[in-house]
């Protein structure tokens, strides 16, 4: 019975629009009928008694059915009880008013009163229902601030996310909380609290739901919060449920790190010993000390001047945007630390920098600290050694680093662990051992994400069918498959009906 109730209850949000539509249409038709008495609006139609009775009867019946379905839904779900109570009361009143209007529809002024009140009640009940489903501020949350000021509505509390920046971010309030708020709190928040669980504050989260705690700090395997998010998206227990906005890989990585690190609430993110992957994600999400992108025109003008002076190639990376590529290789050994220092005016705009074959030294690399946007760096065939690598550790965007033919050794590899986005590292003709480069690779790789990706691939492969998945080699085509075989396999095992 409970199951049937829950099943029927879920029709409430669909069917609820029926009485709303019927009653609003009736209101509009009655208004038209009133207006049609005036000469100017004589072309408007007026309802006949029979039509009115029919429409009212439909409205009343549907509102009673919908109210009953609503009661079933409220009975089975975990909704904010105060909001639900208000919605229930208004809904039942609306249904009653509609019945009353049907009862008195032959008495003009009484009928007008009853219809007007049922319309008002329908609007109010609808609004209360909207608050339950979409949150109390569903009408105002996206309101332009100017309009909100005029109407005297307090602007929605802005997430701190954009404002703080990585350096000042607090663990739960800025790094973890916003993820839960975006992805989970619509069902596990102030409005709904499904499963008795709310995830909109650290305290409520630690309290857990009606099935117990959702995290065990420091133990991922005993924390349903991350386990259930990590399940394949079509698993029954997977969260968020199918069709709801899902967590991105980055968000899940942050959440897993947080639970693994003991689910701290306070303290600065920057003060913790973050794995490079998590540091990279959080820096991106929280933003650094907001540095506006360099100005394209000014950068290119500066770049042309510097290039002319130094005999190097400077090229914008694309026709829009300020980012540039600097290639000092043509200048060769004539390009040294002093010349590198002269790039300072355009430093923030440099994405690709080729210092291969130049005479820059470890000390000179201090100038790279200002190149926050650096993604590709060639230092091959220079005199760079381990001390120089330490100077690269602030370049968080670095993806490609070429150290071929330099004096770097195993000892220098540790400094590169600070580069969360590093994907390609070239060490040919150096003293670095394979073991050291492998260890660096291990430290920079998000193993859980790879494992997750592999299991998804395997699942995908299983579903598509192995032969198609491995690529078309021509082997899968077999002309000899006798149609008789396929036919025999078909009807031999009719599907069982339970």
């Amino acid at each position: 019975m409970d199951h049937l109730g829950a099943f029927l209850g879920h029709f409430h949000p669909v069917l609820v629009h029926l009485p709303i539509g019927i009653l609003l249409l009736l209101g509009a038709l009655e208004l038209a009928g009133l207006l049609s008495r005036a000469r100017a609006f004589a072309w408007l139609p007026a309802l006949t008694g029979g039509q009115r009775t029919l429409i009212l009867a439909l409205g009343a019946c549907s509102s009673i059915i919908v109210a009953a379905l609503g009661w079933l839904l409220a009975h089975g779900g975990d909704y904010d009880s105060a909001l639900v109570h208000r919605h229930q009361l208004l809904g039942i009143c609306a249904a009653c008013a509609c019945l009353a209007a049907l009862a008195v529809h032959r008495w003009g002024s009484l009928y007008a009163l009853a219809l007007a009140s049922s319309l008002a009640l329908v609007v109010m009940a609808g609004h209360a229902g909207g608050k339950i489903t979409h949150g109390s501020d569903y009408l105002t949350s996206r309101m332009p601030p100017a309009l909100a000021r005029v109407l005297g509505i307090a602007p929605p509390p802005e997430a701190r996310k954009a404002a703080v920046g990585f350096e000042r971010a607090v663990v739960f309030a800025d790094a973890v909380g916003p993820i839960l708020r975006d992805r989970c709190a619509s069902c596990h928040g102030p409005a709904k609290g499904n499963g008795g669980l709310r995830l909109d504050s650290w305290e409520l989260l630690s309290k857990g739901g009606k099935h117990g705690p959702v995290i065990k700090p420091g133990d991922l395997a005993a924390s349903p919060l991350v386990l259930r998010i990590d399940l394949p998206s079509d698993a029954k227990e997977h969260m968020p449920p199918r069709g709801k906005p899902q967590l991105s890989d980055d968000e899940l990585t942050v959440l897993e790190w947080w639970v693994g690190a003991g689910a701290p609430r306070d303290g600065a993110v920057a003060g913790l010993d973050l794995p490079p992957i998590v540091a990279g994600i959080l820096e991106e999400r929280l933003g650094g000390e907001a540095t506006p992108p360099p100005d394209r025109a000014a950068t290119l003008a500066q770049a042309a001047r510097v290039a002319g002076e130094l005999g190097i190639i400077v090229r914008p990376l694309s026709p829009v945007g300020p980012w540039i590529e600097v290639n000092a290789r043509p200048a060769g050994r004539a390009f040294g630390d002093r010349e590198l220092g002269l790039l300072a005016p355009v430093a923030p705009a440099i994405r690709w920098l080729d210092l291969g074959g130049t005479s820059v030294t470890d000390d000179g690399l201090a100038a790279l600290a200002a190149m926050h946007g650096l993604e590709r760096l060639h230092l091959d065939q220079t005199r760079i050694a381990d001390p120089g690598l330490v100077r690269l550790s602030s370049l968080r965007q670095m993806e490609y680093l070429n150290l071929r033919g330099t004096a770097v050794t195993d000892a220098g590899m540790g400094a590169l662990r600070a580069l969360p986005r590093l994907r390609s590292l070239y060490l040919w003709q150096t003293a670095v051992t394979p073991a050291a480069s492998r260890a660096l690779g291990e430290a920079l790789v998000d193993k859980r994400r790879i494992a997750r990706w592999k299991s998804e691939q395997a699942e995908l492969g299983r579903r598509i069918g192995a032969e198609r998945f491995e690529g078309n080699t021509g082997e899968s085509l077999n002309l000899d498959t006798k149609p008789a075989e396929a036919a025999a396999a078909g009807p031999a095992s009719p599907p069982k009906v339970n």
Partner: protein
Amino acid sequence: MLSRAGTGLGTLGLASVLSDAGLLAAAPAAIAPGRNPLAPKSTHFPARAKRIIHLFMNGGPSHVDTFDYKPSLEKYNGQKPPTSATKTERVTGSTLMMSPFKFARHGRCGLNVSEIFPNVAKCADDLCVINSMHTNIPNHEPSLLMMTCGDNQPIRPSMGSWLLYGLGAENQNLPGFVVFCPGKPVVGPQLWANSFLPGIFQGAHINNSSLDPKSVIPHLHNGSLTRAAQREQLDLLKQLNEMHLAQRSGDNPLEARIQSLEMAFRMQFEAQDVFDLSKETQSTRDLYGKGQFGEACLLSRRLLERGVRMVQIFTGGGQPWDDHGDATAHAAKAKLVDQPIAALLTDLKRTGMLDDTLVLWGGEFGRTPTAQGAKGRDHHSQGFTVWLAGGGVKGGMTYGATDEFGIAAVEKRTHVHDLHATMLHLMGLDHEKLTYRYGGRDFRLTDVHGKVAKGIFT
């Protein structure tokens, strides 16, 4: 001093290029004297590759004997194709012929490679094999032109020329587009011609049948004048030439000649160095092996690392892969190129250049899966194979497919125009925007065709 002169010219060009960065499509028809047409230019969007090396298997290697394994050819060896819809367009053969070579799976991707490419097979995980290539005409001349210049007819600029026009060169002391061919291929210099583009964008042909750095480019060395005296002479000559040019504006060959004189002077400094293979270690030379193709591959790496935009290496003069009489003759040709190609890939990878160098391997078309005579194969344009590696393409994948006998490309069909569009895209150029106005209309490398095969991008 000389290198300063070179870079001075380069930076002169840079300022003018930066001022109209992004206006590539509206590039001027005639290049004003004093402005360097080879200065590096902005791309249409961020580039994944900065340079191209085309390993050109001219003559047309058979796809079903190299990188497109077809077990059905074994099963139906000597029979007519059981499905009547597919026919080869040349009438020479009608019965299927299995490959005389064995295939095996290689790399973690399990790519099927013929036994005649044992070294390239070791690089399987770096290759992006396009099995669904097709072109228009099963004859050498039109298909060579299609592959190099994007049209079956002559008088279109080659891909290397288009790249120099669109991107400029990163080294002002070397030609930006270098072609290695021992002797002359069929069609000849039209395959690397600038055609109606300014003459400075023409490919520089190097005859690699003998690679003495002193003589590989003739007349590089001036025995009777010091460099300073040469410079003075050339400056005077340049002034006179420019006065001459001023009276004949828009004279393309004249401009080209003036610019190539300048480049010849700058080249004597750097070209002797780049062509001197003795500067490579013995282990590197052993990696590439001996022979014309291997030396050309090693030289290509040396050129590319000095900022040359595109290198094209022909397997040989004439049409070496054109084995009409005996398909097993492919083994000898593969032996010439297999080790050098694998060495090139290895070398590019260890130096970190493979990340932004695009490697293209392939012929102008494929060969018929049906027999010609007793054991040969004829020209075939409906389906063939090329592969790409490096610069922004996924390694260890096959893209598209031919039917089960390797006759026609059926899945993700990729015309040569599509290949060109894709390669330009990887170089940061929109093939629809890279245009040049000539004879009253805008021309493109891809004519009015070309779909970018985004499925192969990393």
